[in-house]
């Protein structure tokens, strides 16, 4: 029986998205992610009264801070990175719910102290034994914390484990981590974050495809010439050299965000919007992806150049990067999805740091009109129809269509029909972390990655990286502030196509 059938007073009130009482323990509380994303997201949720009344946060890290020092730092973070105006009352509520615990993750005694503090908070704040553990920690610390938390999980209440990317380094390490986690937690308790899935416009891709009858009939190889996905950043390694040297563009962006965007673009309609149905369809796409060989993968590393008119160093000159680093800061690839819908339709994807502009775009290029009844001269400025999904910035959708140029004769030009998210709906789109934190507290896994999904992603990455061991490209091969190495252009040119112009 549904909730409304049981309680007639709930009819018309809509679902309530406030989680049940719980305590959130953030491992890695002294890190950048906690400061820039997690706390500002918690503050925004508190502003909207979306956190439960009985709520507690415990920041866990090695730094020797007191509760008050931690609160003070988080207050600064909320003031600096929050999207809402600072409200003393809201902050006081959140601050009162916040504790800090200094411990070494490998220290058994320290982990016992955390368990004791959480139990104490159950009494003090009424969190009822419900726990959310947020692991915002480096990959090398993951196993230690999973084990420590798993061994101490209580019998009372529910438990959820949020795991930040990267989930492993390759297929073998991802499987090992999954195996370790599964010793203590069920798959329903594990929430692997890919924050791209929390973005409104990424979710809008599902609405665009499956709520509009006009797109799905033409969303296939018969009507689509190819798909281009761009995830471009203007930032460099930004003090994350230690991590980035291990990851490179392929593990930092391609393995997770990029493949998620491919999956959402290519997936079949799920039977419903439950976590299992959506993830089942995404996994089918990931299983069907293959690259046509090393010639169709381009990697690059940026040299010095200009961003926003300012001179910026090359990757090898960045702090903490070895001067002979062979880590790629750019990857472009041609992928195929081997199924009835997409056979022989290329998906060109590219991601990189220090590119000309920050943007994430999915471009669906349709086949040209088979026989336009116009003179060649009339159509020379005409491009094929293209549907552009702007994930960031300027979130929205554009459709390039042909239109007659006003005046005598028949001249055609391509014009854009734009839908801008901020123009049609409330402008303050929630941050991805707000949505994901709330979903995890509510136990909704739809926007989180399942273990088999992660493994399929790693299998694709492993197949690409295996070929890289055999050659040594000449790095750097593109200047900061450009659209990447010449090889990426060549990748498209060989197929008679070109990357989207910006």
């Amino acid at each position, binding site marked *: 029986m549904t909730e409304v059938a049981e309680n007639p007073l709930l009819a018309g009130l809509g679902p309530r998205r406030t989680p049940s009482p719980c305590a959130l323990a953030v491992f890695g509380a002294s890190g950048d992610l906690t400061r820039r994303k997690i706390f500002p997201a918690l503050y925004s949720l508190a502003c909207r009264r979306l956190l439960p009344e009985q709520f507690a946060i415990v920041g866990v890290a090695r730094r020797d801070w007191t509760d008050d020092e931690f609160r003070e730092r988080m207050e600064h973070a909320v003031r600096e990175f929050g999207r809402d105006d600072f409200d003393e009352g809201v902050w006081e509520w959140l601050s009162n719910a916040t504790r800090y615990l200094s411990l070494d993750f490998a220290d058994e005694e320290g982990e016992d102290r955390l368990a004791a503090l959480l139990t104490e908070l159950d009494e003090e704040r009424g969190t009822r034994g419900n726990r959310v553990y947020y692991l915002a920690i480096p990959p090398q610390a993951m196993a230690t914390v999973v084990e420590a938390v798993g061994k101490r999980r209580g019998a009372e209440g529910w438990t959820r484990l949020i795991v930040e990317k990267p989930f492993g380094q390759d297929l073998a390490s991802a499987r090992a981590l999954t195996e370790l986690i599964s010793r203590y937690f069920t798959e329903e308790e594990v929430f692997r974050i890919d924050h791209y899935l929390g973005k409104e416009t990424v979710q809008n891709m599902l609405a665009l495809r499956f709520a509009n009858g006009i797109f799905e009939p033409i969303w296939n190889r018969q009507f689509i010439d190819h798909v281009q996905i761009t995830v471009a950043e203007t930032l460099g390694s930004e003090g994350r050299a230690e991590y980035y040297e291990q990851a490179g563009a392929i593990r930092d962006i391609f393995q997770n965000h990029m493949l998620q965007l491919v999956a959402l673009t290519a997936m079949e309609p799920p039977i419903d919007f439950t976590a299992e149905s959506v993830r089942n369809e995404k996994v089918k796409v990931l299983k069907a992806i293959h690259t046509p060989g090393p010639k169709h993968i381009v990697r690059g590393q940026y040299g010095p150049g200009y961003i926003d008119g300012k001179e910026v160093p090359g990757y090898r000159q960045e702090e903490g990067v070895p001067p002979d680093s062979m880590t790629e800061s750019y990857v472009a690839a041609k992928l195929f999805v081997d199924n009835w819908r997409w056979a022989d339709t290329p998906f060109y994807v590219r991601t990189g740091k220090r590119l000309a502009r920050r943007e994430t775009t999915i471009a669906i290029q349709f086949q040209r009109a088979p026989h336009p009844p116009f003179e060649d001269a009339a159509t020379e400025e005409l491009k094929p129809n293209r549907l552009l999904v702007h994930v960031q910035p*300027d979130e929205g959708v554009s459709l390039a269509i042909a239109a007659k140029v006003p005046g005598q004769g028949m001249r055609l030009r391509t014009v854009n029909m734009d839908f801008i998210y901020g123009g049609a709906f409330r402008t303050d789109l929630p941050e991805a972390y707000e949505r994901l934190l709330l979903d995890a507290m509510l136990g909704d896994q739809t926007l989180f990655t399942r273990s088999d999904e992660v493994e399929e992603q790693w299998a694709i990455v492993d197949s690409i990286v295996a070929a890289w061991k055999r050659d040594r490209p000449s790095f750097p091969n593109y200047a900061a502030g450009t659209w990447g190495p010449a090889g990426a252009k060549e990748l498209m040119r060989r197929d008679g196509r070109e990357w989207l112009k910006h």
Partner: protein
Amino acid sequence: MSAAPVQAEDWVGEDVTPADVERALWQVRDASSQGTEGPDLRTSVMTHLAWVPAEWREAAVDTLAGLRERHPSRGILLFPEPAAVDGIDARVSVLAFPQEGGRRHVAAEVIQLTLRGQRVKAPASIVTPLLVTDLPVFLRWRGELPFGAPELEQMVGVCDRLVVDSREWKDPAGAYRELESLFEQTAVSDIAWRCTRPWRRALAGLWPGIAEAGELRITGGSSAEALLLVGWLRSRLGRTVELVHEASGQIESVAVDGTAVPFPREETASSSDLLSAELDELSRDEIYEEAVRAA
């Protein structure tokens, strides 16, 4: 979009026709997009009509200002002045909100029409040419609803949703009986009803203990809110519930059969927030309609 428009273009005309207003719209939109990469985007989700008698003018303009960023569609404010000489005066504004990087603007259009004399009697013929084609039309009617008057009949005929605030009515109990007659003609929203939502949710939290409720005691709030809350409870529970109400300001407390209902912890909403929430609703609200019938 940022909080303020980068530029606002205005056109003012006296004794105009709807065709003059349409032409003016094109002109000011064109002017506002000078200097950007392309024409301003008019991302339209609806036409928002507002019927604003003189005493509500200031409040309506304030509410509209708070709405622009959330619903930057075409807003048409109608100011009736039945005692004046026949004619229509207009002010057309295009507010251009910059998108990230300032390369494009999203345009919000506001048309203010003062309907003088006999023009008050035929508002539908004036606004119909100005509606955005094929998009829903929301009509916010400020103040008392003049049931049976031609202006109300006509405007209900062009709108998909009528938005009222029964807190603005002197005798809500009497007006609810007449309001029922509009339910078959258009979807109706009531901002007073929206204000009761946190309390409805709090009362729903008492289920099943509340199933046999006999008395609802409300301290504070308007008569409209109290009537809607008790009407809702009566219609949902299918039983008689007595109302005891002391009117004043906001609702301070609610008790069922002498037991206090926990105070709801929800965001305080501004008048723009409340109207904005109503503008997001498109279908008929049958729960509200039943509450009105039982109020």
